[in-house]
């Protein structure tokens, strides 16, 4: 499904290729492609410590359990309901979905099973990054996560523990254009849920991050000082408006937000280098407009453009948080709902999911090719999390949420394992999967590994910690109750480094 854009409505058309090239001043075409443009040590030669980054690749519509996980059991028990299997010991491809392109990444990745969001439902954009149930659904409503939930990328973006210095851009969020369905949630000053905007085209993201930086260094330095001066003057105008007697309390929410953002912008301008310290990526030519018109190669190029822009921006320390949201290449939502026992159906769905897996592998491989000052890779210092809004495709449930991660955040989590956290003896949910423990533990593990103290995230959920965990959800005979106590803990084994 693709909503109508205002393409046919307004006079403002999408960027033509000619305009795009003119806009970026022609400097991109002769540049080499990633990762070769980022020479070892170049990105952070001046840094004393290598920053950590978080990348999320968000999918929709769920998966088929039988083709997602390794066919061999995680048979090494670490603790009750904690089983592992080293990925290096699994012969052949990791699973039907995770093919040979993941083999070089095996030592640096984990596959997780048995992480649930009890009480949540399918197509909840709050599932993957908030670990939270949603409270409202409807044709005309927002899709709010429960309570005070915020998504993990937002929490990271606001944490001083994560951003030791403030970058020029807080986060880069991109998605395929056919789906306007942000998985990033914040709250405004009035406490209303705000879904963060995503770029719908990599060209837009590239433009914002790189293309406007065309001043020569001397001019740029002078302009930077003037921008800060003007920024302060403009702030006075905002404050003067704020103090006007005809500004209502509702108005103040809006104006205060502008003041905050402008102050933040001024701080970022002050902190950021005037000119880039690393190279810009080369953008592939991709037709814009409706997703349905793109060829398959265009779609791969589309995501490669996102990947290269994001990795270059991270290498420049212009951002440390990147999120890509994508649906299936074949847009087979109907297939995702069909009976999971139907092998033919699975294979057809798998064909499209594998294309997403290819993009995930490309992202991880390219991050691994960027060498940092300490000789390790960008991936080694980061976490790339590949997840989904739903688990099992048929019922779109939230039992055993699909989750694969890459990178150890600087050896803060163990990697190279297939982890199975399902409860033993198995207990089957009516939706067809065996239940496990709280999915929030995975997000907590990531946030802790990335340097966040619990005080930075525990308040963002249903009141009991990060995300939500409804221990009393029906059909489970109280089997979740013992796991409430550990919902805010790092995952056993993986997180206990």
């Amino acid at each position, binding site marked *: 499904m*693709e909503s109508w854009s205002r393409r046919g409505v307004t006079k403002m058309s999408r960027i033509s290729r000619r305009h795009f090239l003119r806009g970026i001043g022609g400097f991109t075409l002769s540049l080499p492609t990633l990762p070769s443009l980022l020479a070892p040590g170049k990105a952070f030669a001046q840094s004393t410590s290598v920053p950590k980054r978080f990348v999320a690749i968000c999918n929709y519509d769920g998966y088929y359990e039988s083709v997602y996980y390794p066919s061999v059991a995680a048979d090494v028990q670490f603790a009750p309901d904690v089983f592992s299997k080293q990925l290096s010991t699994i012969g052949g491809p990791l699973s039907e979905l995770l093919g040979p392109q993941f083999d070089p990444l095996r030592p640096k990745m984990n596959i997780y099973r048995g992480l649930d969001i009890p009480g949540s439902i399918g197509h909840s954009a709050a599932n993957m990054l908030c670990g939270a149930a949603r409270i409202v659904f*409807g044709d005309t409503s927002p899709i709010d996560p429960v309570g005070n939930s915020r998504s993990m990328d937002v929490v990271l973006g606001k944490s001083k523990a994560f951003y030791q210095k403030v970058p020029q851009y807080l986060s880069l969020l991109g998605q395929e254009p056919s789906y306007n369905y942000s998985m990033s949630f914040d709250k405004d000053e009035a406490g209303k849920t705000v879904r963060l905007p995503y770029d719908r085209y990599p060209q837009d993201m590239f433009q914002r991050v790189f293309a406007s930086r065309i001043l020569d260094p001397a001019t740029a330095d002078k302009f930077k000082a003037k921008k800060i001066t003007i920024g302060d*003057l403009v702030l006075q105008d905002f404050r003067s408006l704020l103090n006007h007697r*005809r500004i209502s309390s*509702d108005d103040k929410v809006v104006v205060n937000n502008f003041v905050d953002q402008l102050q933040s912008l001024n701080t970022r301008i002050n902190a950021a280098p005037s000119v880039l310290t690393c190279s810009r990526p080369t953008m592939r030519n991709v037709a814009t407009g409706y997703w349905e018109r793109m060829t398959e190669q265009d779609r791969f190029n589309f995501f490669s453009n996102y990947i290269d822009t994001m990795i270059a921006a991270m290498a420049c320390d212009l951002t440390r948080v990147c999120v890509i949201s994508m649906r299936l290449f074949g847009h087979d*939502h109907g297939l995702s709902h069909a009976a999971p026992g139907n092998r033919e159906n699975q294979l057809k769905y798998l064909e499209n999911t594998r294309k997403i897996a290819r993009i995930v592998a490309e992202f991880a491989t390219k991050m691994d090719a960027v060498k940092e000052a300490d000789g390790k890779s960008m991936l080694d210092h980061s976490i790339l999390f590949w997840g989904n809004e739903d688990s099992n495709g048929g019922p*779109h449930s939230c039992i055993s949420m699909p989750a694969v991660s890459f990178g150890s955040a600087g050896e803060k989590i163990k990697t190279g394992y297939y982890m199975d956290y399902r409860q033993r003896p198995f207990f089957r949910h009516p939706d067809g999967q065996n239940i496990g423990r709280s999915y929030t533990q995975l997000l907590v593990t990531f946030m802790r590994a990335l340097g966040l103290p619990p005080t930075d995230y525990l308040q963002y959920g249903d009141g009991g910690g990060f995300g939500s965990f409804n221990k009393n959800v029906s059909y489970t005979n109280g089997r979740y109750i013992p796991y409430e106590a550990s919902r805010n803990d790092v995952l056993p084994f993986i997180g206990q480094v």
Partner: protein
Amino acid sequence: MVKSRSTKAIRTTCFLAILGGAMFAFQNCGPAFQLAGETSSSEGSTGSKKMNPFTCSAPGGQSVSSIRRLSKAQYANTLQDLLGGAAFAQIQPTVATLPSDEMKLSVNDIQKVISDTQMTAYQNVAEAVYNQVLASSSLAQSIGGACIVQATVTSACRDDFIRNFGLRAFRRPLSAEEVGRWGAQVFALGESSLDRVGLVVYGMLMSPNFLLKPEIGTEPADADTFALSPFELASRLSYDLTDGPPDAELMAAATANKLSSRAELAAHVDRLVSSARGRAKIRAFFVYWLNPQRYSAASFAADFLQGVDVVQLNDEFEREMFEYLDYMVFTKKASLEDLLTSRESFARGPAAEVYGHVPHVPNGPPAIMSAERKGLLMRGPVIATEGNETHPIVRGVKIRTRFLCETMGLPSGVMTNDPTFFSDEARALHSTRFRTDGLTSQGACVGCHRLINPPGFAFENFDGLGRVRAVERAYSVQGAFLAEHEIRTDSSNVLLGNVQSVNISNGLDVVDRMLEANTMPGCFVRQAHRFYKAQLESAEDDGCALSSSYQKLMVENSEAPLLEMFKSAYLHDSVFRRRMK
């Protein structure tokens, strides 16, 4: 073997297919159920279409819930007018990086606050314009006049530039103090003539007076309700009706204080609504109201498509619908009834085949659609659903939410792939209507689905692509043909906003019945109000404007009811004032 409905219990949930055909379990929904943040306090009484459902009790202020920023479209149009087309084309790629803020389904789509991404985008655009000025003496001259690029700039030249550019950027005159401040604190920072111009432009593009649309009036009194200044009124009219800044005529009228009566506004409102941007805004309203969709070929089986090029069909559906809307609103000066019942069409190519007529000849008279369909509601983009089988619940929800302004409640949280209803065997044995009925006719489901299902079933004679069909062809998940089923489109005792329930035989009846009562036209007025004001209506502040719009649309014998409705809220006394909340 498919279990019968009587032998297999249906779970204590109901299932609502919505937006893409996903199955969701809903309960507690009904016509009176309101969503958080979607409450409306201007509900009127149900009656005949000539009975105005809105009441005008206190024609005082027109509320604006909070100060609003320029939308992305408004921002782009304002920049385009400020810089000129050629310069704007250069920065358009940067403008495109502003986050999208279209109102797709509800006012909740528009975030009141901005993100760091948005602020960064504003700054990048301002910086891109600065860079352009720095690189182009001719652009600097076009912005600041010939004298501004001289080696020595007189104070008169500087002040003229600041005053004139400021007037256009802030949509109001700058005070002498402001002119002095921009000159002393920004212009003076520059190290060259181009730098000085660029810095002022950069700063003004970051100013609240450019990014926001303050409405603070000029009266000294502290009353909650106050008159807008002429320039604020000009901005309100222009941005609301065209998504663009006030044009020269409107600014001249504001300067001459000739925007103080409805008579003085009338010519401006006429001009704005009929301008290219005004027409685009009306198109955008219909996109918001109808939420048209396009589905890719991958959503359909090859046998189902029968060689139809889905991309071409979608393009033609879209083009035709816009041509139809333009024709009805501006050329035919149609009523709402015309819009929803006319069989005139401008379809060509595959869309003409779907609509059952020979291709429309460009600039020729409209073609006539086949007798099974009429009006907007039965056009492809509105009636299409995803996949080989229809989704009557999706169609029913659209009727209830978009046409009757009803809201849906919370999903209960459990979904199923119950083979009783979703297996290929079930599809082979039973029609979509039968299976949908089976899923939703028990327990708590009934409350919602007795409202949703009947109007959805009424369109079962249209397949997922919007083609008329005599029988339902069922397909397996793999797209193999399974069976044909009889189609039923009739229902009894259907609630469609009428005083009493009605019987309907098909979608044509749904339209006719809705047009008999004031609920659907009232909803249409409400939706237009929400779209143009980008906020929910309130009885206290908007009842008079809504009532006036309804009069124009349904009660008075207006020459151009639809067009008059779009204009009426801006030709009402309340447009001159704002009430603070």
